């Protein structure tokens, strides 16, 4: 499934979209992401699934659209 990153998270992924296979839910996804990109564990972000912010662990379909959104402070 495709994971879309925003803001400074793209510096960690080195691109805007990365692909991760074989994760069944958000907790698994977080674990796998942090294993592949340890710097992510130091970053604040929220997760959107199919363009909706989620706060709990939810199951992920293979075609789910996942986005990682960091807070911005500039103005």
């Amino acid at each position: 499934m495709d994971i879309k990153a925003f803001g400074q998270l793209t510096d960690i992924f080195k691109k805007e979209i990365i692909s991760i296979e074989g994760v069944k839910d958000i907790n698994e996804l977080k674990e796998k992401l942090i294993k592949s990109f340890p710097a992510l564990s130091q970053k604040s972000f929220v997760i959107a699934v199919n363009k909706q912010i989620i706060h709990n662990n939810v199951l992920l379909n293979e075609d789910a659209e996942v986005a990682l959104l960091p807070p911005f402070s500039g103005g």
Partner: protein
Amino acid sequence: MNENERYQRQVSLKEFGEKGQQKLRKAKVFIAGAGGLGCPALLYLAASGVGCIGIADDDFVSLNNLHRQVLFSTEDIGKPKVFVAKNKINQLNPEVNIVGYQERLTNLNALNILKDYDVIIDGTDNFPVKYMLNDACVLLDKPLIYGAVSKFEGQVGILNVADEQKIKCNYRDLFPQPPTEQILNCSEEGVLGTLTGIIGAMQANETIKLLTGIGVPLINQLLIYNSLNNQSYTIEITENKKAYQMPLDEEEFIKMDYDWLCLPGKNIQVIDATEFRKMLLETDALFIDVREQDEKPVVSFNHEKIPFSQFENGMENINQNRIVLFCQTGKRSLQAAQMLLKDGAKDKNIYSLKDGILSLQD
């Protein structure tokens, strides 16, 4: 000068019309910050004929502001931003009543200033003010037109306005806790003036839509715009009330220390039942029940008891570096976590169980 002529090009839009113009004339809009976002928002709202615009900023114009803060000229360097803004807007549209507050907006003056306005625009550039402004808008029940930028991307959305399902989300529903890491702002990481121009103009546009009732405003939505590839991505913000503690009234709000709250390096993590169970297997984490003595259910894993009513004294004896707090519903444990941090436990990892012990039961 014929008033109709000034606004003729927008009044002739049939969706907007004379009715829309009247609504703008009656509106009172407040802009927090006359910076990269505040300047374009102020220019467009004043030009469009918003009746009264309040603007607060305690800063002075400097040379490195000018590439993005398009309200100011080279000759304005060193002058108070609010003073210059007021003069420039008077020249642009003398029909607008500009109220300048040449002061820093804080939790001590915010409620008093904001209460007179219909819509609040976030043109601030740091987290302490963003959280403070959000909480003030929630307490006063005012719409907040949020905006922020980071490098080539911008975020914009409308907060604290009920959608069709009567749901009202605020900034804390999106980002419940301030970031624990250092996040750079425009002066530190740089920004193109065109991006703050685009986002500030979008905030003005959303304000006009909200005030006149046209189109589909970004209520409970966050739009992220990337100025390098012109992609935009809009997501729905959903309620997350259990993940944060808000000041509940004016008294609590005034006691808040937003600079401290947003200090990088602090660390409270709100964890769910799955993560909690995983941590039970770790040997170095200390679990603390902050419920009062007689509260049920009794738990069977290893833990200490420091009832919330005695937490202030009891926390002195905590020496571990990984501390997991829990209570019945997740509220007191989060408060206790904040007390621990405030007491100087900045180098510790502090966890609070979301939804409390009840979430472990299913």
